[in-house]
């Protein structure tokens, strides 16, 4: 089977879009259900990516583990480190109001970025660090390796989506919504809401860290430019676009934003080559910002709308 039609860029763009869906789904639980606006997504994503890289490259793993042994152990460590960071940040912001949460989470992402730049001994600073791909021993060539990691990312996102769908219909999901809507009242429901928030943040951050780590693996290279605010924005715009009422919201939203822009516009529109370096990234942020405003104005519940609200209108409509 020929895979020539799959350009390296297309694979990479699909990979980015899939990863953004994963982040948006995890944000769905935090922001969509529990009402906690996590503006530090990229911090957890970046921590996972760097933690994986640092463990993989800087730790002198015993030879007996082999490439895959050290790879998986580093991945596990990345997930644990991101989860613990989520626990810590969750603990810091659990009792704060909206603006405190914004500052806390945004601050965390900024700290992660600064650490990536400053801790050169571990991270390689601004130049970044090369990380080995455990697939290299198979001598598959670049494209099949990328396809493999695209598949891994898609599986990961399917897993995350399955988890989100489960939570949506579970008592735990209802508790998250209750906490988001009326926290004082939710405290008297007989379940520890503080712990609920901590678990939500720890699990969500561990997931974001895992998405970040897989990003690092696919890129073979980790550098601070990968963990800028646009990662957070893309997930957030996608989620707001699709709405949080349905599990499909984040998927549809990200496809309509990052998907449309990074895949359809960049690959299939005949744009002058000189645009790609500087113009397109800027246009992308402007278009995303404008879309966000339009959605908030006309469809504040996302393009899919609010399933619950629709149900009500139906009932009222039928008498």
């Amino acid at each position, binding site marked *: 089977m020929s895979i020539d039609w799959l350009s390296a860029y297309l694979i990479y763009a699909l990979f980015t879009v899939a990863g953004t869906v994963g982040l948006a789904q995890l944000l769905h639980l935090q922001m969509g259900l529990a009402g906690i606006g996590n503006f530090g997504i990229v911090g957890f994503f970046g921590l996972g990516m760097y933690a994986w890289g640092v463990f993989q490259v800087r730790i002198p793993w015993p030879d007996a583990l082999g490439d895959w042994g050290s790879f998986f152990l580093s991945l596990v460590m990345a997930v644990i480190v991101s989860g613990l960071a989520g626990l810590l940040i969750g603990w810091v912001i659990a009792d704060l109001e909206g603006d405190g949460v914004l500052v806390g989470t945004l601050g965390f992402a900024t700290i992660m970025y600064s650490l990536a730049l400053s801790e050169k001994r571990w991270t390689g600073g601004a130049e970044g660090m090369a990380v080995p791909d455990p697939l290299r021993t198979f001598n598959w060539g670049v494209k099949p390796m990328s396809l493999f990691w695209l598949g891994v990312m898609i599986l990961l996102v399917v897993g995350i989506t399955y988890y989100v769908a489960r939570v949506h219909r579970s*008592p735990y999901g*209802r*508790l998250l*919504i*209750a906490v*988001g*809507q*009326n926290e*004082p*009242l*939710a*405290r*008297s*429901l*007989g*379940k*520890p*809401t*503080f712990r609920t928030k901590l678990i939500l943040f720890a699990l969500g951050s561990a997931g974001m860290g895992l998405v970040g780590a897989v990003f690092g693996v696919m890129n073979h290279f980790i550098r601070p430019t990968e963990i800028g605010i646009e990662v957070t924005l893309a997930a957030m715009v996608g989620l707001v676009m699709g709405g949080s009422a349905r599990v499909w919201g984040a998927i549809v939203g990200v496809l309509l934003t990052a998907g449309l822009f990074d895949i359809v516009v960049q690959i299939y529109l005949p744009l002058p080559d000189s645009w790609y370096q500087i113009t397109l990234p800027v246009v992308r942020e402007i278009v995303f910002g404008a879309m966000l405003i339009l959605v908030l104005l006309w469809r504040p519940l996302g393009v899919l709308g609010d399933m*619950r*609200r629709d*149900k*009500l209108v139906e*009932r009222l409509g039928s008498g």
Partner: protein
Amino acid sequence: MLDTKGICSGYHGVTVIKSLDLSVGHEVFAVLGANGAGKTTLLATLARLLPLTEGELWFAGEDISRVSPWVSAAKGIGYVPQEKGIFPGLTVLENLFVGAMIGTRSRDERLDEVIALFPDIGARRNQLAGTLSGGESRMVACGRALMQDPKLLLLDEPTAGLSPKYVDNFFDKIREIHQNRGVSIILAEQNATKALEVADRVMVLSLGEASEVMDAADVTTDKLKEGYRI
């Protein structure tokens, strides 16, 4: 069942409840008082939503002075606040279900009982709670607390601002909840006449200080008005 020993509580250094001793058994206990008397503050304190600055709070033989609200709820204290007693973005049914996260009986069994008690909310089970009328949301809030299978129910002015017909109906329900389900009730009320009809004993709060506790049968609204200016 519930005992307080010299409890004080309030907001940011302002003491509202001043050294209150109270002992509520298996009964309907009414707390009367004018606006600002401290009824809501007292009930929120008993529900552990406000910290005690002094004193001790005992429930069913356990010291709950320092526990979190979810712990006291899990031990059997159900709380229906004066305002914001529902989750507006959840449907009526979902509001009731979040009440059933604790306890051992089956959720559907409890739901059937609550809907039998409040048929009106059964008919609106899929409506968003945020779109209910004032009276309907009070019923949902009360139903949600009952889904927790409480031993003690704290009701903060459940009928304020509602029509007379609804008020009568709700007070009947309070009696029914107490008699048929064996739930003790502490009821904060301004409506002395209705409270005296339904309560076994009453107490009047004014500026956070409590009167002696009286048997409801021994007092009349006029006497309370005269004696305590409520």
